[in-house]
């Protein structure tokens, strides 16, 4: 089946003129996208702190229902959007990938909060995955820790904008040979196997974090344990050691 190219003569000005008279002119694409973007059903799936802000977004004050996205579905089969709201740990990552695989096309992913984007403040933990985009493709990254409910709405609007730009003819899920299921990582002896999926994510040529900070978790490595058996130091030094004065402003 071939679609004829969109050669409509109706421009935006004429459209609004017609709309005033009660006639709506639209293209199939626009109708299709309008329908899809106005009824994004997110998955009811909270991981950590951001999930609470997600619930707050669904509640009275922010009311995600105004965007047609209030129907939080507990089952991946019924949802269009996965909001990865919270830290994805290595123990949880296989389940997240599995849920993504189980979602029906078209499917979108918003990573909400710093943790799900790149590990966030917990990036150096031994059990924290440095970003879920190592295993699945992400549509919108939404930084913040946690993002305000308004920011989540903004992210949703960003996704709607993305949906508006899609066309029936070229969308991935109507193409042949679509592969949108990604291998689910296994638990290994030291972490996940594999550490990332090179089909989706590759380490950057210059890995900023490693280059710049090394591994910050080792900064505090100490080779001398405190000896609590010794009696406490005399009361004079019971107070914290006198600090170096902070640098004087404006030198």
């Amino acid at each position, binding site marked *: 089946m071939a679609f004829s190219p969109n050669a409509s003569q109706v421009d935006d000005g004429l459209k609004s003129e017609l709309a005033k008279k009660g006639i709506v002119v639209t293209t199939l694409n626009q109708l299709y996208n309008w329908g899809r973007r106005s009824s994004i059903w997110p998955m009811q799936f909270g991981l950590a702190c951001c999930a609470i802000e997600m619930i707050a977004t669904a509640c009275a004050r922010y009311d995600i229902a105004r965007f047609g996205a209030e129907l939080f579905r507990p089952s991946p089969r019924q949802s269009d959007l996965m909001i990865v709201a919270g830290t994805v740990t290595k*123990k949880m990552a296989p389940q997240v990938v599995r849920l993504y695989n189980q979602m029906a096309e078209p499917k979108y992913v918003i990573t909400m909060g710093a943790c799900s984007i790149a590990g966030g403040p917990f990036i*150096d933990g*031994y*059990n924290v995955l*440095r970003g879920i985009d190592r295993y699945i493709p992400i549509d919108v990254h939404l930084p913040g820790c946690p993002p305000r409910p308004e920011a989540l709405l903004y992210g949703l609007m960003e996704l709607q904008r993305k949906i508006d730009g899609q066309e029936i003819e070229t969308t991935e899920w109507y193409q042949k040979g679509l592969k949108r299921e990604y*291998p689910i990582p*296994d*638990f*290994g*002896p*030291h*972490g996940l*196997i*594999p*550490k*990332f*999926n*090179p*089909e989706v994510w*590759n*380490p950057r040529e210059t*890995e900023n974090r*490693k280059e710049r900070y*090394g*591994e910050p*978790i*080792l*900064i505090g*490595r*100490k*080779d*001398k*344990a*405190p000896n*609590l*058996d010794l*009696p*406490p130091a005399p009361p004079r030094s019971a107070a914290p050691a006198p600090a170096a004065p902070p640098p004087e402003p404006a030198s």
Partner: protein
Amino acid sequence: MLSTADLKTKIEAAIPGTTLKLVRESLLLENPNDLLKVARFLKESDLGLDYLSSVTGADYLTYLESVYHFYSMAQKSGPVVLRVRTDRQNPQIPSLTALYRGAEFQEREAYDMYGIVYEGHPDLRRVFMWEGFEGWPMRKDYQQEDSETLEMADVAWLENQGVKVPEPIKAKAEELEKQGKRALAQKPGQPEPQ
């Protein structure tokens, strides 16, 4: 509430054979095997320490330690801090779960993080990490993996799944394999672990 020193003499008098040592505000039990006896005494004597608030593992490089904080709910007194030391290679401490149910998960946590084996624990498994995880992540010498470099196991897994691994990544993994090394997270310039 008794002072720690009084408590020490009281326990030593009540349970012959135990030796306690004052460490700051806490009592160090010299022989870990006496732990159950001492805890029973704390719970059942007139001290009435019926509530085990916290069990903590800790790594002091030359030995591992398990710290117990006891309180009394009935008398609203406490805390009594008890600590037990064990060696790093074969860390074994009797479990208090039979006496205090509240120790169950906390001992599992200390086992998970430090590898302290609590003898007599009904269900000593890892609690936070998965089964099959190697190493004790909270010990000070734990080496984290480098999450940006693939190892040969990862490459083999990916190829088994039909994922094409880019050449440079694969070459790096093979190089590591040849040298018999793991991809570890290290600060640049830090000496390599033995």
